């Protein structure tokens, strides 16, 4: 079974390497064609990429690489602009959450954002360039997020800024919470689990575990921050929610 899963992973990676450049060229062309209205362009692109991610997760489930049912999660989520935060145990959290939401804007590290081949696509999707190592850039990042929220598209932020340690959390940054408070939109807290662990920092793609990993996304809470609420308080409340949720997950029997 494990050899079969590894073969499926290799086939998937090969397929991605062959098809991705073609997809990028097509999307870059569409980005240029639809350049007049960034907001409408972003909505159109997210409709395309959400379908692509849903297909991708269907393939990953069918090929028994990693199981994920986006429909189960989609039914729990509010519609409209919101800041979505989540823990980040695996590499496919972004695609899984985007598939469930029908599209979501993300924060992209500056080094990735400026890569020549993918920058047009990132710009077309309305993704926001992250602050990198310059703490002062956070202001621009928050402004950009608030602008995107006004477009009516959810913004997905991993407040840890990196992949989560197994069963744990890194300290939360404040950008997501500052943006939710300023834009006065709901803060949607999602809990991501992958059992057994796969595509984490510790378990890379070419070491698929057995049995087939199951990715699950749970709605932990929807917070509606009041306009006067300091973002620090919202962050602290959210961190406590995640700690409580992680404790429940750790106590739950495996496979539940």
């Amino acid at each position, binding site marked *: 079974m494990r050899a079969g899963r590894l073969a499926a992973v290799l086939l998937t990676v090969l397929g991605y390497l062959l098809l991705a450049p073609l997809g990028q060229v097509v999307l870059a062309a569409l980005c240029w064609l639809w350049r007049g209205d960034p907001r409408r362009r972003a909505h159109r692109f997210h409709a395309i990429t959400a379908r692509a991610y849903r297909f991708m997760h269907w393939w990953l489930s069918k090929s028994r690489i990693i199981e994920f049912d986006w429909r189960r999660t989609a039914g729990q989520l509010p519609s409209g602009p919101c800041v979505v935060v989540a823990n980040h145990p695996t590499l496919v959290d972004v695609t899984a959450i985007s598939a469930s939401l029908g599209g979501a804007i993300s924060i992209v590290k500056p080094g990735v954002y400026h890569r020549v081949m993918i920058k047009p696509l990132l710009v077309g999707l309305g993704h926001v360039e992250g602050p990198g190592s310059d703490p002062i*850039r956070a202001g621009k990042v928050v402004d950009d997020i608030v602008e995107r929220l006004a477009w009516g598209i959810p913004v997905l932020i991993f407040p840890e800024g990196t992949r989560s340690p197994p069963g744990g959390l890194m300290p939360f940054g404040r950008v997501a919470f500052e943006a939710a408070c300023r834009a006065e939109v709901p803060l949607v807290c999602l809990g991501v689990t992958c059992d057994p662990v796969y595509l984490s920092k510790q378990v890379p793609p070419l070491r698929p575990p057995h049995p087939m990993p199951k990715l699950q996304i749970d709605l932990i809470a929807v917070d509606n921050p009041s306009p006067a609420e300091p973002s620090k308080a919202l962050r602290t409340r959210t961190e406590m929610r995640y700690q409580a949720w992680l404790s429940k997950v750790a106590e739950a029997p495996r496979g539940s």
Partner: protein
Amino acid sequence: MSDEQLVSRIKEIIVETLALEDVEPASIETDAPLFGEGLGLDSIDALELALAFHKEFGVRTQENDENNREYYSSVASLAKFITDKQAEATSSTS
């Protein structure tokens, strides 16, 4: 303003601006990291401090300056940053 007075004033501004109710300015170590460890400040705190320093000392922190992380790493580095910027401003007007 002497270097000591500048360092003290920076510590007061940090506590006042960020509303650190449980922290005495004098208890902030001059060379200790401000972000991550030490005081545990974050990027939004850095923004608020940049605004406060601009108001107090007339010193502007440029976005995308590759040295920002270093300037804001400790009270000592902030003091040096403010002193250098003020000296620059003085020499450019004279």
